[in-house]
């Protein structure tokens, strides 16, 4: 029997562990000098995963660069809830141009900084899954391919939430949205081949690609800090549950995000130059049902008749992720 692993945390995150950690290991958010780049008072929904994710990402990027960050933002929830002018929640230089162009805007910023010889100032681009996976994909791919010095962050809530929860290219199969209602023989979103933007990013062989969730904010911060030590095109894909669109309880945002990882539905990993370099292992494997049942967008799978066939297909996808990315701890598997 293998030696039992010592865990300093009880709920699967470092949230409680912060106080037990050395000062240097604590999260940026736990520090008095955090920059509050996305400060309080904005109009995100209760339990918004995107607001949580953006706050951690930007504060970590600000800390990593000594506050020398400029941000390009796509149209979407993050833009709308943060800037009902004259109110703005941004405490960094921030530009919103259009829905589909934030990667190109960020590229332009980086080019200007190069021309101006300002190596100290760094660029972060931000978009939701609509702005990155769908309408902004062309610009994003161009930014990757040119290896522009931009950290681009996609806050993936798996749908067009700002316009009223319609299906995006990142909406999972079976999910109910306003354009994939649970009607007919195949309720919810159709099964396709999926559209993994992290894998698409890796295919560009850019210096750094990582995925994260708002369930492990220490991991998210660490990935941002690492990304800021690198130059060239970097991509961070953060799963951010949306209580409104997913029909999950506001207080369950972190729990749902954690289950996305623990079920294998959302693989958390890092890659450099197209090669997988690390994965966050599943600590306690859970069936996808535990994840789905917390979200009313999947409620039709558990009604009358219960759609075990669809749940099984979603489980197959999670199993495939687990195998493909090696998400299980080999020692746990031996046990």
């Amino acid at each position: 029997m293998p030696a039992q692993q010592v865990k300093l945390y009880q709920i699967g995150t470092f949230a409680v562990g912060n106080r037990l950690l050395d000062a240097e290991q604590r999260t940026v958010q736990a520090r008095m000098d955090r920059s509050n780049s996305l400060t309080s008072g904005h109009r995100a929904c209760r339990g918004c995963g995107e607001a949580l994710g953006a706050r951690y990402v930007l504060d970590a990027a600000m800390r990593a660069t000594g506050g020398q960050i400029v941000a390009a933002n796509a149209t979407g929830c993050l833009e709308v809830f943060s800037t009902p002018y004259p109110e703005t929640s941004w405490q960094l230089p921030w530009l919103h141009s259009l829905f589909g162009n934030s990667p190109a805007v960020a590229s332009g910023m980086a080019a200007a900084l190069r021309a101006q010889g300002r190596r100290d100032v760094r660029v972060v681009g931000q978009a939701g899954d609509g702005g990155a996976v769908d309408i902004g994909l062309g610009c994003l791919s161009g930014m990757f391919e040119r290896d522009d010095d931009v950290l681009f962050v996609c806050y993936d809530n798996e749908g067009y939430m700002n316009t009223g929860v319609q299906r995006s290219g990142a909406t999972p199969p079976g999910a109910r949205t306003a354009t994939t209602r649970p009607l007919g023989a195949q309720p919810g979103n159709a099964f396709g081949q999926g559209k993994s933007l992290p894998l698409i990013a890796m295919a560009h062989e850019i210096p750094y690609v990582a995925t994260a969730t708002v369930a492990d904010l220490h991991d998210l911060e660490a990935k941002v800090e690492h990304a800021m030590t690198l130059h060239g095109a970097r991509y961070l894909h953060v799963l951010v549950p949306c209580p409104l669109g997913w029909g999950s309880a506001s207080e369950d945002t972190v729990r749902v995000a954690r289950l996305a990882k623990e079920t294998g539905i959302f693989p958390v990993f890092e890659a450099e130059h197209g090669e997988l370099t690390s994965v966050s292992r599943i600590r306690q494997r859970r069936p996808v049902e535990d994840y789905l049942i917390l979200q009313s967008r999947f409620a039709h799978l558990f009604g009358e008749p219960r759609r075990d066939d669809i749940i099984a297909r979603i489980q197959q996808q999670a199993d495939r992720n687990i195998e493909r990315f090696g998400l299980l701890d080999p020692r746990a598997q031996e046990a």
Partner: protein
Amino acid sequence: MLSQLEGSQATAKAVARCRPEVVAAYPISPQTHIVEALSDMVRLGELAPCEYLTVESEFGALSACIGASAMGSRTFTATSSQGLLFMAEALFNASGLGLPIVMTVANRAIGAPINIWNDHSDAMAMRDSGWIQLFAGSNQEAVDLHLQAFVLAERLGLPVMVCMDGFVLTHAVERIDLPTVEEVDAFVPRFEPRQLLDPAHPVSIGAMVGPEAFTEVKYLMHARQMQALDEAPSIAADFGDAFGRTSGGLMHSYRTEGADTVVLALGSQVGTIEVVVDDLREEGHAVGVVELVCFRPWPETEVRRALAGAERVLVIERAFAPGAGGILAADVRLALAGTGTEVFGVVAGLGGRPVTRSAIRELVDDVRAGRLAPEGTHFLGLRTDVVEHQLRRADGPRPGPHAESVLAELGIVGSGSH
């Protein structure tokens, strides 16, 4: 310094001497020679410090310019036709944000049917995008307008489109008096951005504006555009003082003194019209021509003043609004409303069809002899037999694609036979 240069090369050199810091462009004919030349200069370090971004689309090109301009860099891009339309959303964004980007539009027709040759459909389709639109009559003016465009854009905080006829100008080799680096440095001041993304002074740009303030924000765009009606002539006068030639401004009048008939047009066709005017004047006919340089903002008062006294005005334009008619003609009719001057709207030169000296002469003669109705829209050189036949065919079942049908009827093989 005088040299024999292709229009695109001359434009590229003029732009280079304005010291852009970021150039982002996507290839589309007939604009490509301009950005190819700039790419070479950047690679050779002749433009340092300047970054050239080979973007994935025109939408990306202008979007990169938006980011770079907001970072405080002088930015330039160029496009044509479909590319300008693909930029459409970003065009409105750049002007709405008040970013002084300068763009060359090598004017080209818009499909379908796809056509790479010159007309003004592209620029006209974007006339409400909030960009200042200047049209060059010659390659010398194209060169000069680029210098003036950077000054105008940065003085007003608005983007400027310099339109030059695709192929007719971009690919024509002409004698060019190219301003020297020192002359351009003296004429185009350093870029002092009105707004800037700066970590030392963080601002939010591009916020949402609701009904409480949207009208006021949009009105300011309009007011700043209208300021160009004063600024453009003032900059052109400064240019005249510095370089000793007339270029830019709102318009150029040619032999309009005492003219009973004045032709008004945009772009390179004015050169041909001037030759016709010379012929007519020599024969004792009082005909003149006004070359409009500044189409947006629309210099309504100045147009009325320039055309005052003419019995009739003939607007020849290389674009039109389907279902409505001439675009420039409609604006001119508004400018001349109540003056008693008759306005004749003629659409000519679509998709690269040559607007010849003889055709213009015939047109002017027709107008002066009362053979053309002042109402409606006339299409110069339209093959009425073909369109009438095609309209009859269209009544039958499944008449098929009409462009291909017209080509078949005309017996045209390949695009170079016209």
